[in-house]
């Protein structure tokens, strides 16, 4: 198992390298630069700025410099937030995004699994139809609709919760964003669980358990172990996406996460910020894909890694 993990981590390096390379040259291809303002800077000032950030060097030299920095764990300075490095920006924003995403993930998993199991057990009955209908709605309605609606209903009309803001992570401020983030994931988890559960409940080993007269709870426990596999493989990329923040939710609720960095960085031509975000997201995706495979091995005895 350990050698497997080590091998997977090693094989992630070339992937990461290709991603970094493509992104680096792609963002440099975009017209405009980080210091293009509405009022053009004086030529001398521009010259100095470019020299300061080493933008006057040929592109391949800049690329090598960036790679060297990356290998030493240095993501470089931000071109837009002049006083901060990319590492500092992430140190501030990543915990916020991870906390929101983590809570949303737990909520989605808990509610989604329960709803999916209930729907599967009561297949083609009222409870099932309700779950399927709500899940379809959850998947279809985009977050940029649910977020403002929740703001109005819970923030303004009922006035239970604040409309937005982070407020140092007060629980009251995290409820709405977490709910908005969790809803679509919850819906997908419920649908996947339901479909897999229906399939598993018909399997031979479950029939054997029934024949042995085991309690319904034990049977569900056994069936769930098999049914949870598609959920796990969905959860890998989903967790990576949730933990690295959502542009929409962070913009609407005014939260200081890293979700907005992508769009902001691309628009401001903050090269290092975009690159940093790409690297962070890619790392999350690679790690979570690895975790999924490990979880598979633990859950499904047929899967073995040498």
């Amino acid at each position, binding site marked *: 198992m350990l050698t497997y993990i080590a091998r997977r981590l090693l094989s992630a390096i070339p992937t990461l390298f290709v991603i970094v390379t493509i992104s680096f040259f792609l963002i440099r291809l975009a017209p405009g630069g980080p210091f293009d303002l509405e009022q053009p800077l004086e030529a001398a000032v521009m010259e100095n700025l470019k020299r300061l950030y080493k933008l006057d060097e040929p592109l391949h030299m800049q690329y090598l410099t960036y790679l060297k920095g990356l290998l030493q764990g240095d993501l470089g300075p931000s071109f837009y937030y002049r006083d901060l490095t990319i590492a500092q920006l992430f140190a501030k924003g990543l915990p916020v995004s991870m906390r929101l995403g983590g809570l949303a993930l737990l909520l989605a998993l808990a509610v989604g699994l329960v709803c999916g199991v209930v729907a599967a057990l009561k297949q083609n009955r009222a409870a099932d139809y309700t779950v399927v209908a709500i899940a*379809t709605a959850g998947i279809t309605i985009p977050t940029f609709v649910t977020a403002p609606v929740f703001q109005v209903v819970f923030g303004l009309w009922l006035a239970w919760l604040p409309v937005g803001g982070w407020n140092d992570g007060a629980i009251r401020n995290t409820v709405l964003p977490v709910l908005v983030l969790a809803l679509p994931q919850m819906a997908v988890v419920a649908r996947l669980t339901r479909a897999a559960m229906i399939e598993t409940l018909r399997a031979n080993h479950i029939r054997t358990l029934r024949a042995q007269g085991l309690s319904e709870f034990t049977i569900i426990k056994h069936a769930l172990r098999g049914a949870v596999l598609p959920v796990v493989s969905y959860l890998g990329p989903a967790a990576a996406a949730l933990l690295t923040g959502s542009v*929409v939710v962070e913009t609407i609720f005014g939260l200081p996460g890293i979700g907005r960095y992508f769009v902001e960085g*691309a628009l401001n031509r903050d090269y290092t910020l975009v690159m940093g975000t790409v690297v962070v997201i890619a790392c999350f995706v690679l790690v979570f894909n690895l975790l999924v495979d490990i979880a598979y091995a633990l859950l499904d005895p047929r899967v073995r890694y040498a």
Partner: protein
Amino acid sequence: MTVLATVPDVTAGRSLWDDALIRLRRNKAAVVSIAVLALVTLLSVFGPYVTGHAFDKVYTEYTRVPASLQLYPSADQIAPAIERIALRLRAKPENIVIRDDMAQVELAAPRAIDERALAFFDRSDIFGPAGVVARAEEGRRLTVDVPIEYRRFLFGTDSNGRDLLTRTLIAGRVSLAIGLLAAGVGVFIGVIYGAVSGYFGGRIDDIMMRIVDVIYALPFIFFVIMLMVFFGRNFVLMFVAVGAVEWLDMARIVRGQTLSLRQQEFVQAAEALGVDHVGILRRHIIPNVLGPVVVYMTLLVPKVILLESFLSFLGLGVQEPLTSWGVLIADGARNIQGATYMLTFPAIFLVTTLFALNFIGDGLRDALDPKDR
């Protein structure tokens, strides 16, 4: 004899597509969704011609009018509007009489009134061109007939005073067109790429699929945002670009199908008969993968519409005065405190369309792939 006539012609075979159509017709959700989608499409295409408003016409007098059946101007809006215009004419309005669609007013001024300035009436959104009925005191007192132009804003107006019904329908046009266009491009590239990769197999397949893997690993949003930065202001190019990103799944599906089709006897027979590669791909491979392709495409359209809305929400999509559901929803979300209707109507249209497309996609999947049920 009549009994015989009703017996179906058993010799006429039913193709797999006929079978699928029958199964699709039995799926109530899918049938209703097709009707709903057709309705939304018809409304979006023809609706803007009958609403009586241009989608980019700004009614400065009617900003943020709430959604209602009410006629505007309302009775208490007319007199103040006349007073405002009279002020610009440097005259005092007297004896304002309002009949059904006509207002009569006497304008009195210390100096003769320049009748050309009566154009101010026509320039406002409330009145038509004014006509002078009587002149008195050497032109210092005019009796003027002003037609009132009544308008309805069923969905209200936005903060600029543009009719939201028309804008929602125009937005529907844009969103649907984008969805179809981008999904079409994506499917086109995906089918050809996947079919070629699966058909030739071997090293070509390896290389082509490795390329797909690498693009997969790139954060998708990054890709799209970079494309927006490049093509930002060009509406069509932008969605060709989105389509060009969305083909990866399609390529994988088609490749898998092609790999198994490749081994079938009819493909080998075609090869033995000396049909060239392009011919085999076109006549035998691609028609046989169309089932999953159709399903995938119906599910891709809502994905693209959602993506477009998401981009427009971030301000990276369609540019003003043109609009899309995403733009309108973003606008509504910003104004939600005072003007809920600005979010409600575009959101209802968007969500209904997405629902319908998803149900149709699911229905098609069940219809075309009976073993998957």
